């Protein structure tokens, strides 16, 4: 048999560290790791010990007989071109790497309790003896995992429980509902992990009447204060964008009442979606299918869920949005009642820190903010709005390493 990893994988690589047969790839450091796509299990070397499934925070690794056929095939296909790795030859494994104790700071402020902030906090607790103050504007941990990840992906949201345990550590002072600006300046280092929530704009006529992904996902996930969308008018909606978020929107828009009942969404959201007249969705990509940003597993899931009610259109550039519909640069108009834009997210400037408006990030070197000693960034505000939850783990680890090594050189703790 063997185990297989499904598309719900957030590639945080917890499983790689526990596999006794080196069957899970790409592992950190290998090409392809950290792109946000899932990890895969080589069925030829997996011995079915179940260790990966046991450790996976989102239940993405499962025995093959409990996985979808496509998932099993995807896993096998990833290795099709390569020879199996001989786990008995221990030199075929990567060498262990050690991070040396660097003393580190005493008091650290982490701003933002999304994945990047939570992984940074965890790393600080593990690698240093610092006291961590963690703040978020919102009342709950999770960031976009709570208020972004689609409600029909409940296993992806499970990671929130791990985050909730981190805030209970007694070296953590957790201040929910707090803006970073409200705190006195009494920290040895600050990690800004504020994310990049703002939707990018198309820059076309009539765009103000469209819904951005930012607003729409916040609404269906019940983020406090998120605006209710205007009438969802049928029968057709257009979603501009070719990433996984665009696919999320299409799936949610086309969910029927039965499917909606199986999701953890506020009752009001369920009612609005169930009553919507949207029966089909056109997904618009600027470039061709080869260049689309969505992952194959997300596309498969969409097609399996909504069938032919979604139309994928590529090489299309919108020019204006009117009550008649969306006009493209080739002059044609797609008649539609609603327009959604999901063409990516960008960070916003942080008071007192430099900002790179082109990339929407705070310029940094391995997490250290350029020209502002003591200030660090992690997550989407550091590397741009790309990659899944797990990518932020490696990212936050890098930042904390930089923070620790720049706050003090290697000290001899026994002295």
């Amino acid at each position, binding site marked *: 048999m063997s185990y297989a990893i499904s598309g719900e994988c957030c590639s945080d690589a917890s499983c790689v*560290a526990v596999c006794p047969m080196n069957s899970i790839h790409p592992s950190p450091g290998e090409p392809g790791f950290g792109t946000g796509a899932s990890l895969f299990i080589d069925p030829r070397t997996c011995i079915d010990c*179940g260790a990966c499934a046991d450790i996976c925070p989102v239940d993405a690794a499962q025995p093959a007989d409990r996985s979808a056929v496509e998932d099993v095939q995807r896993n096998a296909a990833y290795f099709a071109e390569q020879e199996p790795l001989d786990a008995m030859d221990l030199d075929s494994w990567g060498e262990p790497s050690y991070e040396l*104790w660097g003393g580190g700071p005493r008091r650290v402020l982490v701003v933002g309790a999304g994945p990047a902030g939570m992984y940074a906090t965890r790393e600080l607790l593990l690698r240093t003896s610092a006291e961590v103050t963690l703040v978020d504007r919102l009342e709950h941990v999770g960031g976009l995992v709570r208020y972004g990840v689609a409600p029909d992906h409940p296993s992806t949201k499970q990671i929130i429980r791990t985050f909730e345990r981190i805030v209970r550590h007694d070296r953590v002072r957790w201040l929910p509902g707090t803006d970073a600006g409200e705190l006195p300046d009494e920290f040895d280092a600050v990690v800004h992990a504020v994310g990049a929530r703002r939707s990018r704009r198309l820059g076309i006529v009539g765009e103000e009447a469209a819904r951005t992904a930012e607003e729409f996902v916040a609404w269906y996930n019940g983020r406090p204060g998120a605006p209710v969308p205007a009438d969802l008018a049928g029968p057709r909606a257009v979603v501009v964008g070719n990433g996984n978020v665009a696919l999320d929107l299409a799936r949610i828009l086309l969910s029927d009442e039965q499917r909606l009942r199986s999701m953890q969404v506020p009752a009001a959201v369920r009612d609005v979606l169930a009553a919507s007249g949207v029966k089909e969705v056109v997904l618009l990509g600027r470039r061709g299918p080869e260049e689309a940003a969505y992952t194959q597993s997300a596309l498969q899931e969409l097609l399996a869920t909504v069938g032919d009610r979604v139309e994928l259109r590529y090489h299309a550039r919108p020019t204006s949005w009117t009550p008649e519909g969306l006009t493209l640069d080739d002059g044609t108009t797609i008649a539609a009642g609603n327009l959604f834009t999901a063409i990516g997210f960008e960070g916003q400037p942080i008071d007192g820190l430099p900002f790179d408006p082109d990339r929407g990030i705070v310029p940094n070197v391995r997490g250290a903010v350029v020209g502002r000693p003591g200030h660090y960034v992690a997550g989407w505000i550091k590397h741009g709005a790309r990659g899944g939850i797990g990518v932020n783990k490696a990212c936050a680890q890098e930042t904390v390493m930089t923070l620790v090594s720049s706050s003090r050189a290697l000290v001899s703790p026994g002295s």
Partner: protein
Amino acid sequence: MNETAQRLLGSASRLSRDPETEIDWDAPVGDGYGMSPEWSTLYGTPYWDELTEAQQRELTRHESASVATTGIWFELILQQLVLRDVYDKPARSAEFQWALTEIADECRHSIMFARATERMVEPAYRPRWPARELGRMFKTVATGESAYAAILVAEEVLDVMQRDWMRDRRVEPLVRTVNHIHVVEESRHMVFAREETRERLAGAGRGRRWVSALVIAIAADMIVSSMVGPAVYANVGLDVDRAVREARRNEHHRSLLRTSCANLMDFLGSLGLLTPAASRVYRRTGLL
């Protein structure tokens, strides 16, 4: 539970390892490190820097042998815990058969560790007397989640170290092979121990959880603090008082342990076993 046990039996039939035939016990042993030097209890201290490389190497060989001996000690406890637990279970169940498979694995591992340490260093190590006596009591009385979670803690702490050492080219090849054999079979044991712990705890009230959490934490403390004792430093010819003092304050070692045990702590936390009292013990031991 039976489904898990069934899978584990299937896994064992796909790959079980026999140290008797897989390892050439007559081959000469080189002078490689006994463990990754970064895992030495003195690594990062001023004392470590004063040692010659040959001394550092020798120290890691003794530390490694001492850790392996702790492994044997706990495997003995574990075999009895598991045997007592399945005493009146139906022999045809997968759970029963898996339990005996695990005991057989542990039995082979203990022999393997014993032979390997004999080949690596001269003196024999033993856990401290109070640990041995507490272990004697524990293996006679512990049941349910306390037994299985303690098994898990012991296995996991050993496992994280061995995963590093087996991949490290600086470590003596015999140690690397022994460690990989242990890691492969232990991964199944840990899956089983987690599943049993989860199952036994389902429906447990707060009082029982509180007691179990503390018992498990104390067992963890016993195991971790027994791994490397003063005898190791004495046998390498070090100033025992100074070595013990610097090792105790070694923040590098503590952060390495904490990092390695993060998954374990997540698991215990998810079951409500990181009560304030238990957390205090884990922090003192250096696991949290």
